[in-house]
């Protein structure tokens, strides 16, 4: 069951920006309330719009930025905040590894730029698109950078707007979970993928309950992918 990934050469370059931005809109919608909330919290922690914007540009990682702002407000040391950021964001190494398959053979400069925009959200959207076909690295880069622009803008806007943001309006807080659900549905092709998802979900919930922090994502993903891979091999081995 090898992934049949089209190479970028098969996809016309034309329209890459428009198609990339169109694919990114659910991410941007989901980032809006998160970014606004982060900007408000950052302001309460004593960070101005420039400081929040700079953090969003340099770090571009939602949950790590929330934690960093809370730690700043609590007076944590620089070392502790940096170490926490590293741990929280380490899961991206898995996404970066998986992206090496559809981005095989692309030049280093592009990869270095592309890597900046790898998030849970852009990764999930791009992998689904690469899988469907008709997707290339330029469209994928447009997804990354549209999400990045929305994130920076939303966090700065939250900082400028201050305290008054209507919370939970229109169920917007569910935008990203709904997007992840749909992208998960796209991924459920065949028994192996279904079993891998079930194992990942079970391990993630069990780990989440017992171990503080975000390690559940990496632990569950590695465990489930390995279990799924073992099942795949066994099934292949038993076929004539």
């Amino acid at each position, binding site marked *: 069951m090898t992934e049949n990934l089209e190479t970028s050469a098969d996809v016309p370059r034309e329209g890459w920006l428009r198609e990339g931005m169109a*694919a990114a*809109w*659910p991410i941007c919608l989901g980032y809006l309330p998160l970014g606004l909330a982060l900007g408000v919290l950052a302001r309460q922690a004593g960070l101005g719009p420039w*400081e929040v914007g700079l*953090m969003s540009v*340099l*770090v*571009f*990682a939602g949950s*790590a930025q929330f934690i960093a702002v809370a730690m*700043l407000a609590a007076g944590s040391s*620089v070392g502790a*905040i940096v170490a926490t*950021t*590293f741990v929280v964001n*380490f*899961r*991206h190494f*898995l996404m970066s*590894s*998986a*992206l*090496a*398959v559809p*981005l095989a*053979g*692309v030049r*280093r400069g592009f990869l*270095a730029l*592309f*890597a*900046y925009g*790898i998030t*849970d959200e852009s*990764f*999930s959207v791009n992998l*689904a698109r690469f899988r469907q076909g008709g997707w290339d690295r330029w469209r994928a880069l447009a997804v990354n950078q549209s999400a990045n622009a929305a994130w920076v803008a939303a966090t700065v806007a939250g900082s400028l707007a201050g305290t008054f943001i209507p919370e939970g309006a229109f*169920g917007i807080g*569910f935008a990203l*979970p*709904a*997007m992840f*659900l*749909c*992208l998960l549905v*796209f*991924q*459920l092709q065949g028994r192996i993928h279904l079993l891998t*998802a079930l194992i*990942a*979900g079970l391990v*993630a919930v069990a780990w*989440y309950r017992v171990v503080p922090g975000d390690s559940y*994502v990496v632990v*569950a*993903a*590695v465990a*489930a*992918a*390995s279990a799924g891979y073992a099942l795949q091999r066994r099934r292949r081995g038993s076929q004539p």
Partner: protein
Amino acid sequence: MTWSDYLLLVAAMGAVTYLPRALPLLALARRRLPQGLVDWLGLIPVALLAALIAPILFADGATRTLTLGRPELLAALPTFLFAWKTRSLGGTVLVGMACFWLLGGR
């Protein structure tokens, strides 16, 4: 915290975030990978998505206890069905938000 201290902080945060995003891609994309690794990496997206979403649906974020019947889980059921039937990402996001809102989720 002075401006230069803050600059140092966010630069260091940026560096430790960027490296795990960049190093695997730079190391792996320009060499021929063994088929076993390609197959394993092919299962990473589905595993990551399930690992990200499951605790949101089945556990309470504040107490980290197993909770069935939160608006997140109730909204997820019609959202999942809609995604399954339509295969529309944008539509699913909007339907999910509407269900979550109607169920009183925040």
